[in-house]
């Protein structure tokens, strides 16, 4: 058995093949769902296309290298738009394949796809410690404000809540079991069941029939529709913008993953400090995500010591605006309440008493309301309806009684899921869509009033799915249904997704500041030195890891055992001569180190027997013995002086 078995490949530069195209495919999959008309989305799609064209005509090494680099940059651009676990995994795989493509260009001899990908993984693993040190410790910058946010132009709407709430529209959503959002609560459990109301849109413009949300909608229409001047610019009222030097808050308390719903508004509890530059709260308690509407949104909120400012934001004329004369009987009823006393609290109490006494029924299948005086028809003739009906009616009644009121749509309840791995989370489906009223109470602020709780057959407690399923029709029952195995799988995945989001989105400039504070304490000025030292250490670590991985991967198990022994020998200055067989080398070794004696002989014999002889002992046993002997030989080599 010749000791020097180093093969020599004289293979010319060979490239192309499957690897670059594999990376292209992964990138295309990762680009799925990117908003094509946003600046960043368009840029990455164009880059993807150009890369594919370049790859198609590439012939030289230079060109293939460029393709790999373009693929990496595209993966980075996609990472800026989609940060969920699935997309991130795809982006990571694309990076792996692009690197393997680069390796293929250099290592002419290696053409096997699997080994190239393994090499690429080894390289990434070796580079990761350094990258993480930079990621954690390298100073972060705020965005260049004059460039504006990238990717603001919206895409077409998809199913979900609508900016216009007509009584009954939400009923169609209750049949829809598709996911709406997931929320995890790091460092705590879910809020108690009655508090599980997740607001999305505030509808404050009433035309006698439907409630519209003027501030809501896509970015382009966000402010254009408002005729009256409104002191409700995002964050203008609060002064709690995290970047404006507020006290550092603890980490995220809500991590949301919201499906695309055609809106910029995303669900939240109504409390909490946005941890993302893209997130803005407005004066009505809407949370707006500044970006494209067609993609999933991952965002997080931190606990805020003070109560949310929007609850105390005084009403405007808009909140009393009433299409007078459209619903005469409703107005007459409300006029009676107005005479009985002023103040929102009183009106709400009167309304609750009236609702409970009327014996309204909760129903998902309702006849269409007439065009003329629809709410009159609902309250005085039909007397059955859904959350949207009752919230519209109550808010209209309150306005007619002179109390500022509005309709809020969002989600209620949700199923608490504890997956096997990842974060526990509240699973919200489109069927959890809900509408309720908010009434201005002097001295208290905006109070949440849910008239659906006052009607017969409706859910008695907000979000109490068990109670709802006992009494409500099938759609509500379906909402509480844990679902099939696919559903179970999906929930496990979302759990992981949210755990990823907690970790991935959570680390920002502020978290970095806190980390440095914790690491260095008063020696904060030494952060640069810490970075350099950590970089040097991780570079050494990366090189050691890479070298170890490379050595470990050479040859089969027998060869690996032999290589280990040969390396030990080489450290003691015993190197096989060119053309020397293993047997000869073993003999020479025995002469040089007589102590090694019989064990070395056994080792060589067994190795040769395994390699060339008829299989005697089972492979596994032989390997075990080889390993034992090899370890003992290496130990003796280390001990005995040369």
């Amino acid at each position: 058995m010749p000791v020097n078995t180093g093969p020599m490949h004289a293979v010319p530069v060979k490239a192309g093949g499957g690897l670059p195209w594999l990376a292209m495919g992964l990138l295309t999959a990762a680009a799925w769902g990117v908003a094509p008309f946003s600046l960043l989305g368009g840029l990455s799609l164009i880059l993807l296309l150009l890369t594919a064209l370049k790859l198609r005509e590439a012939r030289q090494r230079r060109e293939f290298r460029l393709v790999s680099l373009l693929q990496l940059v595209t993966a980075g651009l996609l990472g800026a738009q989609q940060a969920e676990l699935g997309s991130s995994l795809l982006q990571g795989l694309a990076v792996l394949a692009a690197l393997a493509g680069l390796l293929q260009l250099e290592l002419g001899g290696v053409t096997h796809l699997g080994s190239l990908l393994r090499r690429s993984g080894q390289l990434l693993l070796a580079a990761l410690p350094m990258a993480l040190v930079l990621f954690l410790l390298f100073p972060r910058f705020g965005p260049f404000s004059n460039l504006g946010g990238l990717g603001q132009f919206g895409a077409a709407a998809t199913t979900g809540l609508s900016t216009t709430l007509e009584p009954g529209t939400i009923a169609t959503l209750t049949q829809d079991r598709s996911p709406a959002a997931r929320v995890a609560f790091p460092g705590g459990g879910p809020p108690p069941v009655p508090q599980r109301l997740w607001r999305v849109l505030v509808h404050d413009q009433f035309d006698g029939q439907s409630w519209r949300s003027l501030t809501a909608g896509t970015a382009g229409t966000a402010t254009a529709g408002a005729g009256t001047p409104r002191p409700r610019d995002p964050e203008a009222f609060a002064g709690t913008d995290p970047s404006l030097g507020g006290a550092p808050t603890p980490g995220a308390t809500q991590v949301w993953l919201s499906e695309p719903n055609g809106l910029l508004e995303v669900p939240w509890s109504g409390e909490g400090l946005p941890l993302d530059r893209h997130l803005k709260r407005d004066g009505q308690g809407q949370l707006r995500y500044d970006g494209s509407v067609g993609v999933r949104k991952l965002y997080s909120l931190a606990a805020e010591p003070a109560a949310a400012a929007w609850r105390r934001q005084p009403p405007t004329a808009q909140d009393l605006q009433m299409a007078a004369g459209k619903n005469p009987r409703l107005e007459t009823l409300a006029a009676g309440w107005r005479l009985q006393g002023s103040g929102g609290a009183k009106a709400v109490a009167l309304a609750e008493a009236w609702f409970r006494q009327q014996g309204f029924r909760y129903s998902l299948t309702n006849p269409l309301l007439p065009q003329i005086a629809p709410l009159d028809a609902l309250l005085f003739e039909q007397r059955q309806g859904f959350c949207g009906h009752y919230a519209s009616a109550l808010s209209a009644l309150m306005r007619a009684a002179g109390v500022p009121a509005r309709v809020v749509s969002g989600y209620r309840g949700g199923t608490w899921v504890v997956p096997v791995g990842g974060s526990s989370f509240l699973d919200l489906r489109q069927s959890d869509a809900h509408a309720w009223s908010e009434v201005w109470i002097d001295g208290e602020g905006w109070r949440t009033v849910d008239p659906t709780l006052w009607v017969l057959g409706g859910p008695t407690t907000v979000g109490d799915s068990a109670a709802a399923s006992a009494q409500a029709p099938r759609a509500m029952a379906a909402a509480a249904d844990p679902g099939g195995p696919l559903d179970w799988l999906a929930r496990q995945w979302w759990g992981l997704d949210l755990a990823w989001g907690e970790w991935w989105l959570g680390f920002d400039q502020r978290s970095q500041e806190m980390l440095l504070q914790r690491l260095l304490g008063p020696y904060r000025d030494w952060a640069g030195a810490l970075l350099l030292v950590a970089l040097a250490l991780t570079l050494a670590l990366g090189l050691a890891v890479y070298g170890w991985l490379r050595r470990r991967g050479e040859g089969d198990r027998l060869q690996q055992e032999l290589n280990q022994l040969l390396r030990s020998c080489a450290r003691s200055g015993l190197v096989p001569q060119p053309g020397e067989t293993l047997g000869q080398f073993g003999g020479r070794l025995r002469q040089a180190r007589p102590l090694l004696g019989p064990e070395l002989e056994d080792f060589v014999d067994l190795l040769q027997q395994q390699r060339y002889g008829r299989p005697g002992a089972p492979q596994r046993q032989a390997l075990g013995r080889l390993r034992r002997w090899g370890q003992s030989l290496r130990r003796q080599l280390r001990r005995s002086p040369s």
Partner: protein
Amino acid sequence: MKLGLRNLYIVPTGFGWLWLGGALFLQLVAIQTQSNGPLLLSFVMLALQLLSLHLTHGQLEGLEVRCGQPEPAFAGEAAAYPLIVRVPSACEGLEWRLPPGSFQGVGSLGPGEHQVALTWTPEQRGWQRPGKLRLQTTAPLGLFVCWSRWQVPAEQLIYPAPKPGPVRQVPMADWREKTAAAGALAGEGSEEWQDLRPHRRGDSSSRMAWKLLAQGRGAQTKRFQDPRLEPTLLAPDPALPQEEALEHLCDRLCQLHRQGQSYGLALTGLQIAPDRGNSHRDRCLEALALCR
């Protein structure tokens, strides 16, 4: 030569600079969108670049190169120049260049000793040394190029480039007589009729001169001789410049050798008697290569 810190040089390739640009672009995107994905990727790219600096250098570090015994070759043609490379652990993506010539990929070398034949194209005859050997690698990612230069010490004997053309053939007056006297035993052939000799038992019947036998002039055997037995003494054509004449001589010499004929060489101050065989050819070619 052992490659180490003293004789290895490393700089980023053009692609390396481009790579740095890509990483910085991703930094800008990450800063502007405040997202962690491109930030981490750009740091991974920077880390890979830093790592690649060491890995590329490590490919060549500890490599030992020495010359083999170069075989003679002809000028103007690709000449193989042997090198012996001792690789300590592994060496990937190795490329060589012996000027004048372009880079040749050697590929990956495992640990151990390897014989590598480099090709170069010598222009001049005589004892020649190729220019400085440059060996380089860009593995594993092509971000850095690490190289070393080494003046290879072993000289290679280069024969003149063989080019067909006129050659002067020196008449050898005494040559024919000498061979005739020696009995020309080696001169037997089958091409041209020479003369007759008395038939002996064992002579082929196809060579019997039947006509003479019929004429009653006794059994005679026809003797033949090959024309190439005619020894040739070659000399440079005096009408041509020396180098050109030597090239033509070289070509004629090789041609005669291929045909198996014997030839001699008459150069100024040197005369090689006609003979055949590989060693004779090598001796003649060497004389041509070193002719002053």
